[in-house]
C-alpha cells in the first residue's frame, strides 16, 4: 500500500491534534458535583477556633474553585453548602449534621474539632448515611469507629495517644524522667483522655503526678483549682485546656506566687493563645503536630492573613481543615466521582508515596497530573499527611511552641521526631 504525501500530512496532523486535545478530552470525561458542609462550634467557648475553622475550609474550597476556573473544567462544581454551628455540644452537632446530610445532601462534613461531637455525628449521621467526615477531633477512639473499609471518618490531626506520649517525652527531656508533674485538665472527653494517656506514659517512665486536677471549664472562677495545682512542690506542670478557659486558670495561678510558666507545658490547643486575644505566658511551651513542618505552611498563613476577616484569629491547626478540602477534592478527581465511598477509596492514594509531591500552591499542576492518570502525593500545609487505612495520619513530627514576652505570637522553638 502506498500513501501519498497529503495523506501522510493529514495523518500526522490528526495525531498532533489528538495529542494536543488528549488532556482536554480526559478532563471532559470527569464530571461531578462535590458538596462540602462545615460543622463546627461557631459559638460557645471555642468560637474563636470555630470561626477560624470555618474560614479555613471556605478558603480551601475557594482556592480549588479558582483552579477549576483557570483550567476550564466545566464539568466539575464545588460548593460549600452550609456551615452549621455545633455550639460545642453533641446534641446540637447531631442536629446540624442532620441538616447538612439530609437536607443539603453534602458529600463530606469538615468538622467538628470536638471528639465528643465528631463521635456522635459519625455514629448517628454520617456513617449511617454513607457520608464522609474529616474531623479535627484528636481522640484515639474516633478512628475505631471505622469498622469497615474504606474508612469514612478521617483524622488529619494526630490522635491524643501520640500527643500524650510526645508530651511525656519532651517533659522528661526538660525535667528528667523521675520529675513530679502536676496535671490540670478540663473535665471533658478531650481533657480526661489526654490526661490519662500522659499520666500513664509519665508514670511508666518513672515520673510521678502529685496532683491531677480535673475541673469544670464553665466554673465562674478557677481560683480553688489554681491553689490545688501549686500543691505538692511539683517540678513542672501540664495543662490540657482551650485558651479561653486556660486564661481563667492561669491568672489565679500567677497570683499564688508559686507557678512558673517557664516550667509549664500545654497540649496542642494552648500553643497560640495570644493570637486569640489572650495573654501569653513567657516560657510556656505547648506541643502540636508539625503543621509548621508543611512546606506550604508559610504560604497558607499568608493567604489566611490576606483573605480572612482580621477579627478571626489564625491558628496553625487551621491548616488541617484547609488541607481536608484539597484531599477530598483530589480523591474525588482521581475517583472521577463525588460518591463518598469512592472518594474514601482514593484518599490514601493521593496522600501517600509513591507519587509526585504537590502542595496547594501547585493545585493546577496536581489537577492536571491526576487527570493524566499520574500518581500524586498531596503535601498538606499541615505536613505530608500520609493517611493510613484506619483513617489516621501517620505524622511523627511535632512542633514545640513557646509563648513569647509582651504578648508577641508564640514561635516554634523545636520540631521533634516522636520515638514510640
Amino acid at each position: 500500500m502506498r500513501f501519498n504525501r497529503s495523506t501522510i500530512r493529514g495523518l500526522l496532523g490528526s495525531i498532533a491534534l489528538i495529542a494536543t486535545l488528549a488532556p482536554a478530552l480526559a478532563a471532559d470525561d470527569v464530571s461531578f458535583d462535590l458538596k462540602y458542609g462545615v460543622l463546627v462550634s461557631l459559638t460557645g467557648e471555642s468560637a474563636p477556633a470555630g470561626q477560624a475553622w470555618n474560614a479555613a475550609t471556605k478558603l480551601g474550597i475557594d482556592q480549588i474553585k479558582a483552579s477549576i476556573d483557570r483550567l476550564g473544567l466545566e464539568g466539575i462544581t464545588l460548593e460549600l453548602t452550609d456551615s452549621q454551628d455545633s455550639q460545642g455540644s453533641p446534641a446540637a452537632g447531631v442536629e446540624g449534621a442532620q441538616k447538612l446530610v439530609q437536607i443539603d445532601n453534602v458529600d463530606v462534613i469538615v468538622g467538628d474539632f470536638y471528639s465528643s461531637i465528631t463521635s456522635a455525628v459519625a455514629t448517628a449521621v454520617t456513617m449511617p448515611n454513607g457520608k464522609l467526615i474529616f474531623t479535627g477531633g484528636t481522640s484515639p477512639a474516633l478512628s475505631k469507629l471505622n469498622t469497615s473499609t474504606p474508612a469514612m471518618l478521617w483524622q488529619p490531626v494526630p490522635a491524643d495517644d501520640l500527643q500524650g506520649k510526645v508530651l511525656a517525652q519532651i517533659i522528661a527531656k526538660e525535667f528528667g524522667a523521675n520529675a513530679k508533674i502536676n496535671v490540670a485538665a478540663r473535665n471533658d472527653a478531650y481533657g480526661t483522655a489526654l490526661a490519662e494517656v500522659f499520666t500513664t506514659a509519665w508514670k511508666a517512665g518513672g515520673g510521678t503526678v502529685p496532683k491531677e486536677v480535673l475541673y469544670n471549664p464553665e466554673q465562674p472562677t478557677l481560683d480553688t483549682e489554681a491553689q490545688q495545682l501549686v500543691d505538692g512542690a511539683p517540678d513542672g506542670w501540664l495543662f490540657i485546656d482551650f485558651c479561653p478557659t486556660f486564661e481563667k486558670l492561669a491568672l489565679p495561678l500567677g497570683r499564688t506566687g508559686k507557678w512558673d510558666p517557664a516550667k509549664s507545658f500545654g497540649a496542642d490547643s494552648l500553643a497560640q493563645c495570644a493570637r486569640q486575644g489572650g495573654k501569653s505566658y513567657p516560657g510556656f511551651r505547648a506541643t502540636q503536630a508539625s503543621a509548621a513542618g508543611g512546606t506550604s505552611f508559610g504560604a497558607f498563613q499568608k493567604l489566611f492573613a490576606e483573605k480572612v476577616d482580621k477579627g478571626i484569629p489564625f491558628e496553625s491547626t487551621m491548616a488541617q481543615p484547609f488541607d481536608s478540602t484539597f484531599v477530598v477534592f483530589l480523591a474525588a478527581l482521581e475517583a472521577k466521582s463525588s460518591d463518598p465511598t469512592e472518594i474514601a477509596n482514593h484518599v490514601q492514594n493521593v496522600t501517600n508515596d509513591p507519587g509526585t509531591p504537590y502542595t496547594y500552591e501547585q493545585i493546577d499542576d496536581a489537577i492536571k497530573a491526576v487527570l493524566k492518570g499520574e500518581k500524586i502525593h498531596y503535601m498538606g500545609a499541615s505536613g505530608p499527611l500520609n493517611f493510613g487505612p484506619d483513617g489516621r495520619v501517620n505524622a511523627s513530627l511535632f512542633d514545640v511552641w513557646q509563648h513569647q514576652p509582651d504578648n508577641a505570637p508564640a514561635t516554634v522553638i523545636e520540631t521533634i521526631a516522636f520515638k514510640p
Partner: protein
Amino acid sequence: MLQQLAQLTINGLITGTILGLTGVGLTLVFGIQRLANFAYGEYLTTAAYIAFIANVVFGLDLVSSALLAMAGGALLALLLHFLVLKPLRGRGLVAMSLITVGLGMMLRNVIFLVAGPQIRSLDIDQTRVFDLGLIRISPGQALAIGIAIVVAPAVALFLSRTTIGKSMRAVADNRDLAAVTGIDVERIGTYVWLLAGALAGIGGVMLAIVQGTFNPNLGTQILFLIFTTIVLGGIGNAYGALIGGVVLGLVMELSTWEGFAGGLEPRFKSVLAFVVLILLLLYRPQGLFGKERVL
C-alpha cells in the same frame, strides 16, 4: 490548712456575691413578670462588653465604665421588655421561657458578630497580688469585693426602705393583692426590668474582672448557677437570692477544703450545685427563705 480555708472563703464570697446580686434581678423579674428569663446571661455579657468599650476603647476608668455598663444593661432589659417580651405576654410560662432561650441565643450571636470571638479583658492589672497574710487577692478581686460591699447593702436598702423597692417586693409576693392595694403593677413591672438590667450590668462587670478575661459566652456559663441561687433563696424573694448566692458560692468553694475529709474534687463543684438544687426541690421547694403557699 487554715490559709486554704481563708482563701476558699474569700473565693466563695466573691463568686457568691456575683450570684446573689444577679440573682436579685432574675428573681424579681420572675416574681413580678412571671417569666423565667433564660436570656439573662446575655444581659451580663452585653454589659461586660459595654464596659470593655468604655474602659479599653475609650479609656474611661473602671468605675465609670461599670456605671455605663449598668445603664446599658438596664436599657437593654427595658428595650427587650417593650419590644419583645411585653407584646408576647400571656403565652404561658413554658412558651415565654422558650422565647427567652431564643432571645438569648440571638443576643449571643449578635455579640459574636459585632465583637468577634476573641478573648477580651478590662484594663486592670491581673498579675498584681495583695498579700494579706492568710489570703492573697488580685486588684480585680479587691474591686469586686468593694463593689459588693457598696452594691449589696444598697440593693437591700432600696428594697426595704424605698416605696418602689417595697412595691417590687409586694408585687413579687402577691401580684393581685398588690394591685388591690393601689400599686401600679405595670409601672413596677417596668422598674423591675430596669433594676434587673442594672444588676446584670454590675454582675457582668464583676464577673469579667474576677475571671480576668471573657468572651461572648461569659453570661451563659453562669446562668445555671444564677437559677440555682434563686431557687435556693426562694423564687421571687430578693433577700433570699442575695443570701442564697453567697451560700451557694461558699458551699461550692468550701466543699473542696481538705479539712472536709480531704475535700471534694473541684470538678464536682457544679455537681454539688445540682445536688443542692435537687435536695431543695425535694424537701423545701419554696427555697430557704420562701414562704410555703397553701391553696
